[in-house]
């Protein structure tokens, strides 16, 4: 545990000492909730259609895939015309693209970023590294199955997949969303303990709250 997260005794301005427990006092402790579709089907269909046509990707690059994402913004591929754009903050993004291998250290950040996104949210794994470790299958520091840790909606294979493959993948994701099958966020909430166990098994210094709201 990092020092700044340990319990500490502080002295208030009135001279009274009290204890501050950062993990409890500074972070929300509630576990994620399942948010099932609640509206009438036609409304939900509309929403799902809108979600599929407005995919906001969190600009978070891991591994070499981050390089493959960039051409999507260029005139040649122009992903914007498919309603895809990049957002700089997880709060506003729907799609977390894990663009390559995840070291344990990066996994920690990826989990945090994922948890801070709002339901519904999607995860796409990019390249073989996210599927089975790829060329890092024997690395001491790289996870091999992304779906053990995050609810992956879609994998795009390749080492690395080309931007065209990405676009194709996103089109498939859209279909999933429209079909109402992309419920990763709820899946994560339902199997929260399982995911957490997996995560904690590889992240040895778990110095964050269980759920990063």
């Amino acid at each position, binding site marked *: 545990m990092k020092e700044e997260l340990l319990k500490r005794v*502080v002295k208030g301005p*009135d001279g009274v000492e009290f204890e501050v427990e950062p993990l409890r006092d500074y972070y929300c402790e509630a576990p994620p909730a399942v948010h099932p579709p609640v509206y009438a089907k036609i409304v939900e269909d509309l929403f799902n259609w809108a979600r599929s046509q407005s995919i906001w990707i969190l600009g978070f690059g891991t591994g070499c895939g981050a390089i493959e994402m960039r051409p999507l913004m260029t005139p040649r591929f122009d992903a914007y015309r498919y309603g895809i754009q990049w957002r700089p903050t997880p709060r506003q993004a729907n799609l977390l693209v894990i663009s390559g291998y995840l070291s344990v250290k990066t996994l920690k950040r990826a989990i945090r970023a994922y948890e801070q996104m709002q339901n519904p949210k999607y995860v796409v794994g990019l390249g073989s590294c996210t599927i089975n470790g790829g060329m890092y299958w024997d690395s001491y520091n790289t996870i091999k199955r992304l779906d053990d840790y995050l609810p992956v909606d879609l994998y795009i294979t390749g080492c690395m997949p080309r931007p065209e493959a990405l676009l194709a993948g996103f089109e498939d994701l859209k279909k999933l969303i429209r079909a109402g099958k992309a419920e990763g966020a709820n899946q994560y909430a339902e199997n929260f303990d399982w995911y957490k166990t997996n995560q904690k098994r590889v992240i040895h210094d778990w110095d964050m709250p269980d759920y990063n709201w």
Partner: protein
Amino acid sequence: MVSPLYIIAVALVAAFLLGLLKEERRGLAYSVTLVTLALMSWISANWLWLFISTDAVPVEIYTAGTAPPFAINLRMGLVEAALTLLINLTGLISGLAMKDSLLRQGRRAMAVWLVAVMALSGIVLTRDMFNMFVFFELAVIATAGLVLISEHIRNDGLTLAAGFKYMITSQFISTFLLIGIIFAYHATGTLNIDGMANTSLVLLNGGSIAFFLMFIAIIAELKPFPANGWALDIYESADPAFSALFSAATGAAALYAADKLLLIGGAEWLPIATGIGIVTFVAANLLALPQTHDRRLLGYSSIAQTGLILVVLGQRDILGEHTLFIAGGLLLSHAVAKAGLFWLSGLVAGRELNAWAALRSHPLLVFAFVTFICMLTGLPPFPGFYAKWELIHLLAGEGRIALLGLILFSALIEAGYLFRWFGYVMKRESPAEPVDTAPHKTAAVLVAVIAAWGLSFLWGELAGALFGRGNILLALPLLFALSFLLLDPLPAWLKNTLAIAGMVAWFYLTYTEYDPLRMIFAAIFLIGGALTLLASYHAHGKRIGFYPSAMLMYAGLAMLIRATSTFDFFVAWELLTVGSYFLILRGKHSEPHALSYILFSLGGAFMILAGFALAAQGAPHFSLASLQELAQPLAPWVFLLLAIGFMTKTAAIGLHIWLPGAHAEAETDVSPMVSGILLKAGLYGLIMLLLTMGRQNFYGVDLVNAMLWIGAITALIGNLLAIFQEDAKRLLAYSSIGQMGYAMFGLALMNHLGWLMALMFVINHYVYKSMLFLAVGGVAKRTGTREMYRMGGLITLMPLSFIATLIGIIAVSGVPPLSGFGGRWIFYNAILTSEARLPMIILFLAGPIAFLYLFRLIYTIFLGQLKDEFRRVKEAPFWIILPQMIYVAILLVVAVVPGLVLRHVDAYLDQFFPNGGLSWDGMIITSDFGYWNPIAIMIIVGVIFMTLFSWLLFVNRRAQKVKQFNIVFSAERPFRPETTHFAWNFFAPYRKALGFLTLPLVTLFWSTMTDFLHTAGDLTRRFYTGNGQTYAYHLLGFVIIVYLFGMGIQP
């Protein structure tokens, strides 16, 4: 009546008898001494009563039974009676204060003491020149003897050296005096002073040189600059009780002697006396500045005061019959205060000025100290105030402007070191040695205090009789304020209730008298003041000193709006200045700021005094309304002086450096008083000024136009400085400077809407600045800091303070729908009709800058990250919150129906500015250019807001409440709240862009000025080498210089 001769006789007999007593019977000897002194005082008092109560003519006492020139004669008149009473009483009380040392030294010392007092009385009483010489020599010998006898008490040789220096000087003096006397006698054939005067000594052959020698000898006894090194050494080294006598009684006697001599010298010698006096007054005050030894400082101050009185004597040609009133007022103020201070110094163990901090644990002694320094500074209601008022007026009436300026300048320096000293007393670390509270010593001080207030009353009555002025001490608000001195032992809540009741009652009693303009100010001063006082309920205990100070300020404010004559106005002005100074000084670290406040304020007040004096042109009674009858070339000068005076209070740019510290360091409930309420006094002054005098042209510069520029620059710089403050209260203080700039700008527009805007600012600024100061003060109270970057995230813990701040900043920024918008709207309409367009550009820039500091205020305190140590902070105390909530309500009401107040003012302004008013058509307010419907705005904004809010509530009904670290942080987690709260150096890019505008040039200017004065004083005083012989050279040099000047002006 007992013959005054007995004053002398009794002392001589007693001194003789003391010699017969056995050395061991010290107690008896002491009693004899005291009884003798009491008897002498009683005789003088008796005479004084006779002269006061009846119109008795002065009595001549012929000692040898024949009239002069064949015998010595004494005279007992009003002045003589008063002065001998002063001398004898000082002797008596000093004798009392010196009890220990007199008892130790035995009967010889007591005999010498009696002789000294007797000799001083003799100087006053005698009308014979040679007799006067004898009494002077007696005084010298007695003084030297006392020093010699008392030497073994300190046993360090310092006193001895001082005494010897005194003797050297007096040898020279007596030589001059004797030769002068003999030649004067030779010329006139008489030794009688009146005889010499009647024969016009100075016109006779060789008479003028004879007179010069006598004159210079007596003057030298007054310790003029620079021939006064010896006197300072005596002051510094002698027993304080003796110094009291030396300062109060010797000074008085010597001054009267000088006065008698001037009778002989006639009008030609008056300028010389004036010159010596003013040089001494200025130089001694300057030299007092760098002093750290209390008694030496008092010595310098004594010399300065003597110099001032000499100026008055020298100006008798224009002061005429009032000389007595003025010189008497100054002399008695000086004598009582200085004696009191010397006695007080006997109670304090250390000799550094800081050591006087020991007084702090004795409120009564602090009160005594305050009384004395206010008396010395010439603040109302003390006699010196009346005297100074008349003096300045008469000088101005005769056009002696340079002298007037020097007097005021020097008085300001004097106030500077005295109030600085008071700051030390209140704020410096208390020394280890406690105050000596022996009853006889304390009693002496208290007698002086009583005398001070008694004289104040007396002079008030005299002023009433002579000039038809009301006695200040009888003014009801002042009495009410002073009554809190007596109530001070009561608990604070009770006093608070009384204070509030008093203020509301006074408003109720007087509200019918005010026109709408004054009504605004009256409501702010009295009702607003009462409202602010609600916050004071939060204080526990007795809060010694708070209520007298606060009520003094409010008394001044209450009197200010009712004042119709310049005198009443100025009295009120001084009272509110002093009261607020004491209030500000109560803050924890406010010592330097309170000092700069009082200095700027007194400087401003002196400007006002000079302005009024110039305007009055010698008329004893001058009403404020007559200001408008002034014509060129006088009017612009008066305008300039008054405007600068008022602008020190509104903290216009250049004169603003006192404000931030003073407002920020003041206590929680004091800040709103001095900011929300007190600043308005300056605006009130400006309004009075502009109403009566209007536009003035000063060498081609339109002064109102200049004010326009000053207002605009003040607004800009005030706002700009505010955004760079880390201290929340300093931020608000700078913001006040900016807001006052706006108001001043509005006034200077000199049109209907400009004034309306200024008045709107007056009201709004009172409400929101009081509210913000209270809110911030409450937060600072709870968190123990005023630095904003150390706060943060307090919104959930202090929601009410947050609401007040939120409403406050919306109102300040002028965003609709709150009341600040009204001000902006009127402002825009006002400038459209004005010709001066360029200053507005500055104001346009200043406007948005306000957003910067306002956002910073609310964000860094209430939003952002909550810190560890503040997690358990509670909401501010109820009594601090309550007035804030009332202010919130007021703001909302004013926002919806601004017409409640403004309509009346608008209508009232029609008589001054008939064009361009607003029309109040139902709910719509229309000007020549635009329109504005506050209720509609409020409703529209409210409806839209509520609709959207409900919609969001519906959509986000299940939103998860998260905590402060649940933020997206580039996928990291925050480290600690301190490093996550972005608050310090908040507007760094702005500093890069426009920071050059905030260079502290003004502070640099003023600190250079004060440094210069200090350095000048410090260098000049090197000139007192401590060598008795050097002092003798000084004396001879002085004589020669005066001779050259004196003979130069002879016909």
